[in-house]
């Protein structure tokens, strides 16, 4: 009987991070009939508000782990706590969001438990033999692969938005059982000291990595993201940027899309004044539909655009926003 464990990423308010419920949904599939979905919650943040939601999504047990004086935001600490629960729960699969922090923790969990790891997965399932198999795009979105985990324990990091979350059909939502656990982490996990930590100010816009529609600005905006923000507000999109735009300080570093920034795979990507350098493409090429507006007909982004407009973004974007508003209200 498979126990699938889900890492419950949350903010310090105790709010679940956007895509955790997607993980719970994928976990139910992997656990199968007779299997169980457990959650692992690391830290002292308030768990109560999340419990009913987790129950609705099929999580039957939440392991609430405290790590004493050790800061669970340090990934070696997180890794020891999670590995401890993997063993205690007898879990054969661990699902987590594919973030840089979780990748670090996953590497250490893998060493502690002998697990095989797949990062940046776009889907996960079991094959006929019961092995965990994950799909992912590689080489800057130009190839798709399916990767089987050969070890007894599988760690799969799913990209935000990979799964459409759904709750269980049962009338009565499950009330998850909370199992408190205190883990004494080793000294080797706590040799790094946090001198300073500044949390990013929360934004009203959808999260870039999981947004359905992403509006992206590059050097061609000349620093004026105003028209792009108006469009994003009209269509409920997240706003992203190229490295040039973040380096110039036109928008926060966390908005950078690309090989060394956020990877996005929205249903719709709209790029304005973006040339489509290979480093940027690596982070967006797996998007469903790609729209690009650029003055230069030779811009590489047109090679991968489903709809390209050769033109000035300051003409096209306000007109696009205005027309969408008119057609949708009209």
């Amino acid at each position: 009987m498979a126990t699938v464990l889900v890492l419950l990423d949350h903010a310090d308010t105790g709010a679940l991070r956007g895509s955790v419920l997607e993980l719970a949904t994928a976990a139910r599939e992997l656990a199968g009939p007779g299997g169980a979905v457990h959650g692992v919650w690391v830290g002292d943040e308030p768990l109560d508000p999340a419990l009913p939601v987790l129950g609705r999504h099929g999580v039957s047990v939440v392991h609430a782990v405290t790590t004493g004086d050790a800061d669970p935001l340090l990934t070696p600490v997180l890794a020891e706590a999670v590995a401890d629960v993997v063993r205690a729960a007898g879990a054969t699969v661990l699902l987590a969001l594919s973030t840089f922090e979780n990748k670090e923790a996953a590497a250490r969990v893998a060493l502690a438990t002998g697990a095989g790891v797949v990062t940046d997965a776009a889907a996960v399932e079991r094959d006929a033999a019961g092995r965990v198999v994950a799909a992912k795009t590689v080489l800057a979105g130009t190839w798709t692969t399916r990767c089987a985990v050969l070890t007894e324990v599988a760690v799969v990091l799913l990209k935000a938005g990979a799964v459409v979350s759904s709750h269980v059909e049962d009338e009565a939502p499950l009330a998850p059982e909370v199992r408190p656990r205190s883990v004494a982490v080793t000294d080797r996990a706590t040799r790094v000291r946090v001198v300073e930590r500044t949390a990013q100010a929360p934004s009203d816009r959808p999260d870039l990595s999981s947004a359905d529609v992403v509006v992206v600005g590059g050097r061609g905006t000349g620093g004026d993201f105003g028209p792009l923000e108006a469009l994003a507000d009209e269509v409920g999109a997240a706003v992203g940027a190229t490295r040039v735009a973040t380096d110039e300080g036109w928008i926060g570093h966390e908005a950078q899309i690309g090989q060394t920034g956020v990877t996005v795979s929205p249903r719709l990507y709209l790029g304005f004044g973006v040339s489509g350098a290979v480093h940027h493409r690596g982070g967006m090429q797996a998007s469903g539909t790609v729209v690009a507006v650029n003055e230069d007909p030779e811009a590489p982004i047109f090679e991968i655009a489903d709809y390209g407009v050769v033109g000035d973004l300051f003409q096209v974007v306000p007109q696009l926003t205005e027309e969408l508003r008119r057609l949708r209200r009209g």
Partner: protein
Amino acid sequence: MRIVVCVKHVPDIQSERALGPDGRLVRDGGDGTLNELDENAVEAAVVLAEQARDAGGDAEVVVVTAGPDDAEDAVRRGLQLGADAAVHVLDDAVAGSDAIGTATVLAAAVRHLGEADLVVTGMAGLDGLTSLLPAALADLLDLPQLTLASSVALADGTVTVRRDLDHATEVLEAPLPALVSVTDRANEPRYPNFQAIMAARKKPVTVLTLADLGVDPATVGSAGARTEVVEAAPRPPRTDRVLVTDDGEAGRHLAAWLLERDLVRTTPATGEVL
């Protein structure tokens, strides 16, 4: 002070990259290079070594790689960028290693070199992009890990880094020895001049096998891999592409195109988050 930089030889991201029938990267064609993100790692190490020497100390930067014959190019490039010596773990059994296997080989190589005060890596390999290696290497070497650094400083046996994450910015500190991974924001890699290229030719590249390192071949390479690619296919090209030049109406046409295909919600935004 000894700084060891772990680097990787990867197919050039500007070139046409492909996977073979075995699901592994095609590594022929001779367009491999030093992983671009590892240039930042070498640069960080070379700058720290220069600072240590300026302060009157001894410092040595050693670049280490594991990979087939070609991979020697990666450490050669590291030498041109200012490293003092290089190690190339060359062994057929290394082929097919996953991130954990590669970390196992590199950890053994770092240990083989003796005491390292600092181990530096890039933030990711631009081939697999897993970012698993730095943390795995830190774990295996039992070093504190300070990853994804956008700046690195050394003082009085302490390393301090700054890092930007999705939800927070942090300053972290640890006593040496330690492991640091750097992002492409950490520095601007130098461009080697003719002199540096000539000087690099005289620098030693030590070749080691798994036997030299005491690594059991069964634990690394495809023998030890914990995952296996069972299917690989190029993404089908996009079809029905539209490319228009703005005639003053392109914004309107694009709006209609998006709504026709149901790519944006047909009901107006009311301010709520989807």
